[in-house]
């Protein structure tokens, strides 16, 4: 099933020179490919960072994506299940991979 992600923008409120009222950073909906494993990506990744953070890493090898996903758990303590780690890494390599194993 195709999920269409359109640019949804929350306009930032006018800001004074000082941050003495709540500041809103705009939300940018990065276009991301959907497919096998995307559910795990959506459920886990967005808590900490945008899709932009993922797709702007450039095309990477399978080992890179696995290493990065594992780093989210080991270094950054994201509560991602081992099954989801595999699904996410596989998804990233399939859609944002460079075709190389390493």
């Amino acid at each position, binding site marked *: 099933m195709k999920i269409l992600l359109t640019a949804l923008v929350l306009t930032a409120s006018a800001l004074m020179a000082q941050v003495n009222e709540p*500041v809103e950073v705009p939300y*940018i909906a990065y276009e991301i490919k959907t497919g096998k494993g995307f559910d795990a990506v959506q459920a886990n990744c967005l*808590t*900490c*960072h945008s899709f932009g953070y993922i797709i702007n890493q450039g095309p990477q090898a399978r080992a890179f994506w696995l290493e990065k996903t594992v780093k989210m758990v080991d270094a950054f*303590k*994201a509560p991602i299940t081992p099954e989801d780690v595999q699904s996410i890494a596989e998804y990233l390599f399939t859609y944002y991979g460079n075709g190389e194993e390493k």
Partner: protein
Amino acid sequence: MQRREFFKKSFAAASALALADTLGASETRQPIDNRKVSSIAFPEKRPLITYSDRPPLLESPRETFSRAITPNDEFFVRWHMPEIPTHIDPATYKIHINGAVERELHISLDSLKLDFEQVEVTAVLQCGGNSRSAFTPTAGGIQWGHGAMGCAKWKGVRLRDLLSRAGLKKDAAWIGFNGLDNAAYYETPNFVREMPLEDLDDHVIVAYEMNGEDLPYLNGYPLRLVIPGHYSDSWVKMLSNITVTTEYQKLFFMDVAYRVPDNDCECETPENRFKPTKPITTMNVKSIIGYPTNNTIVHHNTHLVVRGVAFDDGHGIRDVLISTDGGKTWGTALLDKDAGRYAFRAFRYAIKPTKMGKLTIMAKAINRLGAEQPFAHEIKWNHGGYKFNGIDAVTVEVI
């Protein structure tokens, strides 16, 4: 079909083999330079190249670098953590100094401005991964073009003065810095940075002002650390806590991030990653052409004034050289007024293209120690894609 597949594969294997010897030496290129600014502006910013909204990652376009001072609304943005306070009350904000000190301090913004000597420094702030997209194979991290840098006049107080007021204990050895940004999960390590006490000099300041204005929110309002000459990884934003320790604390953002191979060339290959590593620390000599930009159309036999900026880690720029023949011959650019050893040194160089077609203009900076920029293809690979400082090149169309 199968046969063709076979040939394709063996060809790929052969070229991989041939590359293995020279990998890193021959593959670096000019960083990606065709990204457009977003149509969406962030608070206090004009629209910039936008890699991420959470955490915010914004890059200045090349045109920004035709001036020696980077305007606040064009200055790049890079946060590590997604949770940034949306409200800061300047009347109650305090910076806390604690740890191995004689007395803990909790200093308000007013007190910072009234009770300490006010100092200014014009200094370049550059991400260690600036220009990362030059590296091939693709290095890990955001694929920045040239615009993860800027130069501003910072005003604040000396870190040394703050620490003197607190009184360093005899065995104090490290200074840790933490800002108000937080991770989504409590367990995630904070973006805390440490500086060895011996790196502390009078140029390191806690700044509240940038180019005569309060720091923009996304550049660390109300306070950030400024460490002239050093990459920006330790210029902690929304600085709230300075903790002095007697020993190095093992921290993720010190031990793992922002490190390069600890060998002479600071290089390695993807197959043979080099250990040990060292922090990226001080910046190497670099220059960027701000005008013209790639694909600018210029008329032949008309004047074209090339403008850009050059900088290093504080030794100062001696020369910027320009080449229009692929680096065979070089002319000396005019250097604008020196705004201090840590600042961008603006340069300009007038040419009058006579031949129609594509014209590549290169800029190379040389610092006062004689260190000069290598060609882009001479830069060797490192896994984090740090410290790229290849000779810049833009190609224009002469009609």
